[in-house]
């Protein structure tokens, strides 16, 4: 909250020098951490791996690691979208509604009208449809000039209502063959000692590709810098010649596009299209991005950090069973974990600020 350090209080004269030096180092380390946001989630990842792996060596089995990667794909795609919007100073909560509003009609339409369509055009349809819905968010943010969080709460309700009122509500299992095939396509296949098939699904690459492209956009194009500029201060950015409304359009379209792709991947991975799916996961996706070092106030955040943050959240969800936490208490443990991470970041920010 406050920028001044309250770390140093009346310390006795003797130990004073040593103490202020240690706070100094801590401050420096903290600022280094703030500027390398992927480090914290990475350390967490390693720590959790070590602890869980010790308690239950099964953790290190390929099958389990593949599972974590597979489960990270959809939240990861969504998280990249959240990151881009957050970097531009907004907050989007409509992305799950977009994903659902894209995946369901696309799956139903393709299997009804073009059941032989390949996965590439389906992904493209998802990306375009998601991008268009995202653009609606962007236009509303520009026109209504209200905080993005509020507008996307509105569009979340509207998109979801639209889907369930006018498109359909029934579980759809007859998804196009190309989606089923792509969902089962494996990069790597093996069999465990106990005779179970394990596979690293190829659609993990979709996440990887999205992460790389998003990184390129953020770091190697002018609009990437413009996104952070607007996130830092949209008024100042406007005065310096950045086209703020175009940045808004872009980030929401990008987030929408990623959400559309995530929706398609969700159907592909699960082999069914349930219009009720994904709703309610938006906060944990946002938590993953924050855990990856992006600030809720905007203007910061990195792709690597976001990927790490997603993996951490997926990992925690996954390992509690392995460690033997009874399922009734898993939610509480997850909550406690998020709180601990929040406390860590708060402490870090204070150390970084109070030089």
């Amino acid at each position, binding site marked *: 909250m406050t920028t001044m350090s309250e770390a140093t209080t009346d310390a006795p004269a003797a130990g004073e020098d040593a103490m202020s030096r240690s706070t100094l180092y801590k401050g420096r380390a903290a600022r280094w951490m703030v500027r390398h946001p992927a480090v914290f989630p990475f350390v967490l990842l390693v720590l959790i791996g070590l602890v869980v792996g010790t308690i239950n060596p099964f953790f290190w089995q390929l099958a389990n690691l593949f599972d974590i990667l597979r489960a990270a794909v959809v939240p990861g795609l969504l998280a990249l979208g959240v990151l881009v919007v957050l970097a531009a100073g907004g907050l989007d909560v409509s992305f799950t509604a977009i994903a659902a509003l894209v995946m369901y009609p696309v799956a139903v339409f393709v299997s009804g009208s073009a059941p032989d369509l390949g996965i590439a055009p389906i992904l493209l349809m998802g990306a375009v449809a998601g991008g268009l819905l995202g653009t609606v968010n962007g236009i509303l943010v520009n026109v209504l000039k209200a905080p993005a969080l509020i507008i996307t709460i509105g569009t979340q*309700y*509207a998109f979801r209502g639209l889907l369930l009122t006018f498109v359909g509500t029934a579980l759809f299992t007859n998804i196009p063959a190309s989606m089923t095939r792509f969902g089962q396509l494996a990069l790597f296949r093996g069999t465990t000692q106990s005779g179970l098939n394990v596979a690293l699904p190829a659609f993990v690459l979709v996440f990887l590709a999205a992460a790389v492209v998003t990184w390129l956009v953020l770091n190697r194009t002018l609009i990437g810098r413009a996104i952070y500029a607007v996130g830092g201060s949209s008024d100042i950015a406007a005065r310096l010649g950045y086209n703020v409304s175009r940045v808004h359009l872009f980030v929401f379209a990008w987030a929408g596009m990623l959400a559309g792709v995530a929706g398609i991947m969700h159907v592909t991975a699960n082999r069914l299209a349930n219009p009720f799916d994904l709703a309610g996961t938006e906060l944990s996706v946002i938590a993953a991005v924050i855990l990856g070092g992006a600030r809720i106030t905007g203007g910061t955040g990195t792709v690597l950090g976001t990927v790490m943050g997603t993996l951490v959240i997926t990992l925690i969800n996954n390992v509690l069973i392995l460690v033997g936490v009874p399922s009734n208490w898993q939610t509480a443990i997850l909550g406690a974990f998020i709180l601990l991470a929040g406390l860590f970041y708060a402490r870090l920010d204070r150390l970084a600020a109070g030089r």
Partner: protein
Amino acid sequence: MHHRSLDPQLLFLLFVNAAVVVAAMVLTGPEFTSAYNFQSMASQVPELGLLALGVMLAMISGNGGIDLSGIALANLAGIVGYQIAVATVDPSVAPLSYILVFSCGALLIGVIGGAINGALIGYAGVTSIIATLGTQLFFTGVAVGLTGGSAQMLGYIPMFDSFGNVPVMGIPLTFALFIIIALAVAAMLKFTKFGTHLFLMGSNAKAAYFAGIPVRSVLFRTFFLSGILASVAGIVIAARTSSVKWDYGTSYVLAAILIAVMAGVRPQGGYGRVVCVVLSASALQLLSSLFNFMALSNFFRDFAWGVLLLMFLAFSRFDYRTWLPMRRPS
């Protein structure tokens, strides 16, 4: 703060409330405007309304303040209150003390939960969205852990059931309680030192600190109060349903934010009015009941809420600039 009594939100919300009632008279039968239905609607407002008041307080505190843990805490309060009450009092012998123990237990959990939120956000400096997301999961998780996920039956206690469901002199008691609490919160915001400090802190936290406002304690008290409001909501829910369960009202998280925002509470902090929150909650209730009367699907209601929110933003756009602050240079 200027032109307070006639600000555009208030007018707009009054208009929406009136418009829905008029529309209902045209579109549905006379049942909608019957006393029974008004009582029925009034008794549905408090649970969500109380949570929205908590969200409002959190939003006023600024710096992206928000409370996502409200309904989770409300449910946990109900569950723990129930467990304490069942363990100590036999409801068939002493129903009144059973209810009192239940309510006190629930309030106690509200106090503890609110204090946890307040301490995390105020003293430990955790961003409120992260802190309350964490506590939301934590409270929910504890509730599941304590109950194994099943509903806890309070049993039929006529006195408590009447409190939840039977109007006195035409007014549902839970609604009356809600209005009293809303008035108290409004008075607190307007006439106490805490209220003044809260608004100022919400509009510029750094200046507040420099000016000697104890920002940490103000933040603590804000979320503490929000926690207490949540536990009252938990008691109201228990009274209305005679049971407590960990996943009651999962849709309330965003709905409470929706109400606060439609009430014109500024998400950047520093501005919000209780009367608008009450009117906003009642507008949504009227609309939702109207749709139920018209046998329109709940999905359509979600759609309508979203569009209504966007329309509201479009409406306030006319006037937005005059009450949007001059941007502070960074």
